[in-house]
């Protein structure tokens, strides 16, 4: 995982190297300054040599300026490197997701993909910055300080041989346990957030069934568990601080006791002792810093894994080499097609589909909830690949066609359709980015959308909010149809796309289709029988099988399911209309 993520550093490799390199400089200065300080005390202050004090002091001043410069440069490069990595990761994931097939998308769910692209990238960015800064600074600090301590007085520095292992053990203990505790804690956090979210979404249900006490109890149980886990995790995190305090002061006392004797015996200078104190603090501080940084990095491992999962996901639908870039006509053939979602080939949702649709035909598809109507049509623009058999468009197997070409020629209005934030005009141009205003208006007229768009103050420049929330359901559906029409496709598929449109408008749309785009193959899935009644061919689906194909009259006479559907809708109305 680390290697995979590392490969996205890309053009920021230089910054990634420079940040720790400059850090090295800063650390060197941080360590040398106290060292010089001891000279200042020993040779300058104690001997009353003011010139010496000034000379060494001047050197210290220069070093401080250098330290500042190095430190800042390290910070600058670390910022560039970490935000650069984040940028590249976001970009790589976004681009990978663009290659995803519907199957890939189903596997991840949008909300999880969104978290991966936002929160997870952010976590990785932070811990990467930690890695190239703190994880360089702290160990360097420690090593430098250790070396200097040994240089100053090897006998006293031996004290570290005792304290470092103790600290290391505490550190290992904390890091080892932290991963488990924090993982559990974060999971519980997700539960809590999910519970609140559900309560907000379901508030009407909660209130209607008077389940407020139930919900409060449920929430408090999660809240209690979260507190329990948080406490466990935090108890762990507070351990290193007092241990370190004890150790630092332990060293100071030991240094004082032993050093005092050395000094009195003339084996050591007084100034060295104070310098040793400083190093003691530095060594142990660095140690604690390393612990904290490692804990953070451990915590972001999960985020890194989730990112790599996306990056490693292979698109399940890809172009063949030498794919055909021409769709001859709008004819469609389903040749013994079976289909199952996911890997379980036995859970077929479509079984042995045999269907031929001529170019320019209007085909209606009718079937109950769960009869796989949507699945059937999604095979045409190759949103999913068949499990067995083949689908031909214009006489060619869709798997041999260039995906881009295929989808340009097969325009589909999905059941769960989306408009995007932006003007109506911009949304329409998703269908054809070069469409003129006139072409857009013409498509909207066909889809019976022009009528309400022209009542808007800003007409086609009206801004659509995210998710299209500022137009009604029926208006949204009509705009989506217009957008699909702008592709000037050979095949147009409407998947229950007029359910919120009133019957009169629905009929007007179909009439416009018949008159204006007679050569386009039109496939209409509908709940409402009047939407498909006049089709050249009506396909009746039941539990993933075709149980009837034909014109209205024939089906009504011979197909039980079709007749039932028809009667369930038309009985009352029919008596009168007839």
């Amino acid at each position: 995982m680390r290697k995979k993520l590392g490969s996205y550093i890309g053009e920021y490799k230089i910054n990634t190297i420079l940040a720790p390199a400059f850090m090295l400089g800063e650390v060197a200065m941080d360590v040398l300054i106290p060292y010089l300080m001891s000279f200042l005390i020993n040779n300058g202050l104690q001997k009353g040599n003011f010139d010496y004090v000034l000379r060494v002091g001047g050197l210290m001043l220069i070093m401080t300026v250098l330290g500042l410069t190095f430190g800042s440069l390290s910070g600058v490069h670390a910022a560039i490197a970490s935000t650069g990595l984040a940028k590249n990761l976001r970009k790589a994931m976004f681009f990978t997701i663009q290659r995803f097939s519907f199957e890939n998308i189903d596997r991840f769910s949008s909300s999880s993909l969104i978290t991966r692209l936002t929160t997870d990238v952010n976590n990785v960015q932070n811990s990467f910055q930690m890695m190239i800064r703190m994880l360089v600074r702290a160990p360097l600090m420690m090593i430098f300080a250790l070396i200097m301590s040994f240089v100053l007085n090897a006998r006293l520095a031996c004290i570290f041989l005792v304290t470092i292992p103790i600290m290391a053990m505490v550190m290992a203990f904390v890091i080892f346990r932290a991963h488990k505790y924090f993982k559990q804690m974060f999971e519980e956090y997700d539960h809590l957030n999910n519970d609140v979210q559900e309560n907000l979404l379901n508030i009407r249900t909660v209130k209607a069934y008077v389940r407020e006490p139930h919900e409060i109890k449920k929430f408090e149980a999660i809240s209690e568990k979260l507190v329990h886990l948080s406490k466990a995790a935090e108890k762990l995190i507070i351990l290193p601080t007092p241990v370190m305090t004890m150790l630092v002061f332990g060293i100071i006392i030991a240094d004082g006791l032993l050093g005092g004797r050395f000094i009195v015996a003339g084996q050591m200078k007084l100034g060295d002792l104070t310098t040793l104190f400083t190093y003691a603090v530095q060594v142990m501080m660095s140690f604690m810093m390393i612990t904290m940084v490692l804990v953070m990095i451990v915590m972001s491992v999960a985020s890194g894994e989730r990112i790599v999962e996306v990056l490693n996901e292979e698109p399940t639908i890809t172009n063949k080499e030498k794919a055909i870039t021409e769709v001859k006509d709008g004819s469609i053939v389903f040749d013994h097609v079976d289909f199952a979602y996911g890997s379980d080939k036995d859970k077929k949702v479509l079984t042995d589909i045999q269907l031929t649709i001529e170019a320019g035909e209007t085909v209606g598809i009718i079937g109950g909830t769960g009869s796989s109507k949507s699945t059937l049509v999604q095979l045409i623009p190759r949103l999913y690949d068949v499990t067995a058999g083949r689908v031909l468009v214009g006489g060619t197997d869709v798997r041999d066609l260039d995906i881009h070409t295929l989808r340009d020629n097969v325009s589909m209005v999905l059941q769960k359709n989306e408009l995007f934030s932006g003007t109506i005009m911009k949304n329409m141009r998703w269908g054809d980015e070069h469409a003129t205003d006139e072409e857009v208006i013409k498509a909207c007229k066909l889809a019976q959308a022009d009528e309400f768009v022209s009542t808007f103050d800003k007409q086609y420049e009206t801004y659509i909010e995210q998710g299209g929330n500022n137009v009604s359901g029926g208006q949204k559906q009509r705009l989506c149809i217009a957008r699909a029409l702008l592709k000037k496709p050979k095949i147009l598929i409407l998947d229950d796309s007029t359910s919120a449109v009133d019957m009169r408008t629905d009929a007007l749309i179909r009439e416009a289709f018949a008159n204006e785009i007679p050569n386009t193959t039109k496939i209409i899935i509908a709940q409402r029988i009047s939407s498909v009644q006049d089709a050249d061919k009506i396909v009746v689906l039941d539990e993933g099988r075709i149980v009837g194909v034909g014109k209205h009259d024939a089906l009504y006479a011979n197909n039980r399911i079709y007749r039932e559907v028809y009667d369930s809708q038309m009985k009352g109305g029919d008596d009168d209309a007839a």
Partner: protein
Amino acid sequence: MPPRPRAMGPRPKMEKGRMKEVFFRLMRYITRVYRLQFVIVMISIVLVAIGTAYGTGLLRNLIDEGIAPQIGASHPDFTRLYEVCGVMAGVYTAVALLQWLLNRLMINITQGTLQTIRNEMMRTMQKFPLRYFDTNSNGDIMSRYTNDTDTLRQMISQGLPNVVSSLLSIVVVFVSMLRLSWQLTVIVLAFLGLIIYMGKFLGGRSSRYYVKQQDSVGKVNGYIEEMLSGQKVVKVFNHEATCEEEFTKLNEELFENASKAGMFANIMMPIMAQMSNFLYFFVAVAGAALIIKGIIPITLGVLIAFLQYTKNFTNPITQVSQQISGVVMALAGADRIFKLLDEKPEVDEGTVTLVNVEEQPDGSLKEVNQRTEKWAFKKPLPDGGSTLVRLRGHVEFHNVEFGYNDEKTVLKDLSLYAKPGQKIAFVGHTGAGKTTITNLINRFYDVQEGEITYDGINVKDIKKDDLRRSLGIVLQDTHLFTGTIRENIRYGRLDATDAEVEAAAKLANADHFIRHLENGYDTVITGDGGMLSQGQRQLLSIARAAVADPPVLILDEATSSIDTRTESIVQEGMDRLMNGRTVFVIAHRLSTVRNAKAILYLENGVVKERGEHKELLGLRGKYYQLYTGAFELE
């Protein structure tokens, strides 16, 4: 304490005047439950600060008294050295233990306070009127539980103790420095001005870029959310390349701003650190000069101890400057949380309750505890007794006026009635007021004028919980809860047996598809039941209503995503269940309402037509137009 992952987005802002108020309110929360622990923490903070300063001071004694006098002595006497070391050991051990104690108590305080606040938020929120949820976005409410609580956690657990102990350290160290040498202290103070100025300058710069970065983050996240939610549409329209292009642009912009913000934040640290080195150097040189020239009467030991103090002086100042922005942010978050807690709950002045009854042989009613098929409203009488009114489902609107806001009246002088035991349908265009009527019956909203009576009792006099228990409601947008299918159906009646749950599912025609799921009734639903189709979710929510088996049922576009053949099967089942009880149906589909006893055609909040299906068609009026538009065309 490592930060938890958090949602990014603009930070909350607040007016300065409220800050004090919010702070004290927050403190009351902390001290309400954890007063003793909080006092101990505060004392510990003081002791740790004093202990650390005192311990540092001991270094001077160690050198000046323990070591220096003995240098050159032929028989050195280390008694004083041992003494000082002994005191130091005692002081440091105490400091370390106190540090642990205060951190440990802070965990209790922080987590406990957060739990109190979170639970209180949920408890308060559950009592809010529906209007609150309709007028505040879910994301906004959510962020009180996530972002705001999280900043609060950081502030209580780190910000507060850090600021207090830093301020204390500053004072203690300052006093100690003064005692050692006021002359050197003046030098330090002069320098301090410079540090604060630098901090302000850099901090200002940094926050400017920070704001820009947050803007960019908002834009990129917004784009990601929108495009990934609509990813299937993107694919269908071959729009991938354009999305990539647009995304790259926003992503680059974010990088620009984020790297600049990061740079300034990163530069802050070395600059502050080196500032303290500068200070160290100046004090050393100046001190040395003063001692050598004999201008100030201090010893070398004093200078060394003083130098140590200067280190201890700049650290807490840097700390405070870093913590302040966090505290301000947390207070803004706390402010938003308190605003939620201060929202007014639903008013409920009702006294009438719902009870199960048995009919006595003489025709009178008797209250019973077990579930019967009969219900009654129990009306308290002034003399302390009560009277039972048989629940029949006779709902009447008398001259009702209602609007969701002052600008627009949805219902104008609306009067209507539903006869007991009948199926009543409301039809009409979007915005005609159909759903509003049901919102008023179960008092999701309250009427502004007029009144609604339920078996002759004003709904305002019925306890809200009992009123709602008497009304089963199935909504068009069905959201499910995380949990098994069984649990989701059982939501209608928590004590329903497995057999009752399955019977309800059969009645709703959901049994068939449930059994086809991997684990049948024990299939766990996550992410709002994304794996189920809208139609299937509607069947589940009908099953939920069926298991509740309510005296009165409201179906608000409850079958809109179910195909008409399945719908008629479901309808049959529900009609059987609700036989003799009142049912309200809202639908725009003819097949859904056709067999209703009375169909009310609504237009702009007024009942325009009323009658049976055939009657209304015979009128050739609005209803006829609404449903036969298609035939007219032919």
